[in-house]
């Protein structure tokens, strides 16, 4: 088998990896949707439950669809980077490089060059959020219109933010709650908790409202005549699904970047690192002294 055929076969497999998840999602949706008259607005369909000590673990449509989007994204990344060369000669490598450059420019513009290591994470958040919202175009249940999925992301972001805030030392972090005056402490705590909640609700609410409004438009047009259902809802989904979903993905990534870079206490971190280095130096000197004796 020549090199070229092998390359083609791997390419085909990767393309299948990108398309099959969505086909699987549509098949699952068709199999599990209960028969009903007309259009109904429901939450995610529960596929099956696993018995757990506290409460049964439900595997819902939202989870499964987000896994499918993940598989799609992995396939997309592998496809775009398949057979990359130092001097690009294929179209897909140009696309891949364009994406990487754009994300790196976004990160360096909003966070600074120190945080370049965040570029892959931001790209993952952007891609995941954007493609999750866009999956509603195929008639799938968009995972971002389930609060649990988005809340999971925002809790992850919150953990990263807190980790970066703690880099200035625990004392510095605790002190932050009592500023500008100690009376503000409860408000600061509420503000801290509000960060992940508002991030999650913003994203979830926008996508959910898109889903509900497009379903209502669909139902209303169907009530008038079945012919009107063709095409007209697509115009509305241009705004509610595509524009709103992409804007929310961008905002989620943007807020992640801003919160992380604003939360990082630079001065306190440098002071702490200096102190640590000093302590280390002294310890080593003392050890050397002991050894010399």
């Amino acid at each position, binding site marked *: 088998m020549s090199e070229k055929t092998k390359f083609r076969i791997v390419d085909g497999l990767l393309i299948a990896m990108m398309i099959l998840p969505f086909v699987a999602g549509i098949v699952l949706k068709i199999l599990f949707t209960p028969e009903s008259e007309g259009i109904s*607005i429901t939450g995610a369909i529960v596929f099956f439950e696993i018995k757990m000590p506290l409460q049964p673990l439900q595997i819902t449509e939202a989870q499964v669809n987000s896994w499918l989007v993940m598989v799609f994204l992995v396939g997309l990344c592998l496809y775009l980077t398949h057979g990359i060369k130092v001097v690009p000669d294929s179209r897909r490598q140009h696309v891949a490089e364009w994406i990487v450059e754009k994300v790196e420019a976004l990160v360096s513009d909003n966070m600074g060059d120190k945080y370049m290591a965040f570029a892959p994470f931001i790209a993952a958040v952007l891609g995941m959020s954007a493609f999750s919202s866009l999956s509603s175009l195929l008639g799938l249940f968009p995972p971002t219109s389930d609060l649990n999925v988005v809340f999971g992301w925002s809790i992850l972001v919150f953990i990263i933010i807190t980790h970066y805030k703690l880099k200035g030392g625990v004392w510095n972090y605790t002190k932050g709650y009592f500023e500008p005056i100690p009376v503000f402490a409860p408000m600061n705590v509420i503000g801290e908790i509000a960060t992940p909640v*508002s991030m999650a*609700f*913003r994203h*979830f*609410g*926008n996508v*959910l*409202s898109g889903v*509900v409004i497009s379903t209502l438009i669909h139902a209303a047009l169907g009530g008038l005549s079945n012919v009107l259902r063709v095409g007209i809802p697509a115009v509305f989904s241009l705004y509610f699904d595509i524009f709103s979903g992409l*804007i*929310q993905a*961008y*905002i989620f990534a*943007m807020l992640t970047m801003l919160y992380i870079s604003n939360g990082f206490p630079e001065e306190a971190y440098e002071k702490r690192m200096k102190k640590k280095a000093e302590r280390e130096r002294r310890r080593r000197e003392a050890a050397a002294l002991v050894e010399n004796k």
Partner: protein
Amino acid sequence: MELAIAIILGCCAVGAGLALIAGIGPGIGEGYAVGQACAAIGRQPESRGQVTSTMIMGCAIAETTGIYGLVIGILLIFVAPNIFVGILQKAIGA
């Protein structure tokens, strides 16, 4: 019993309508933001791209409160009646 359920359904609908009053704030705020962005572009047409992207981002963030109202409205219409009627039936023991 029917009367109680009717009151629950009616109040849920009224509550959903009231929740959508939250749309006033973002409407005024976003209008003001867009107006200011237009003024900024008029003053410095070369900064159009930056102003537009900042404005869209600010608008989407300002929209959050309106979206909260919308979420409450949707919950009140599609989710709450079932829960409330269930609570009522449990309380009565029917």
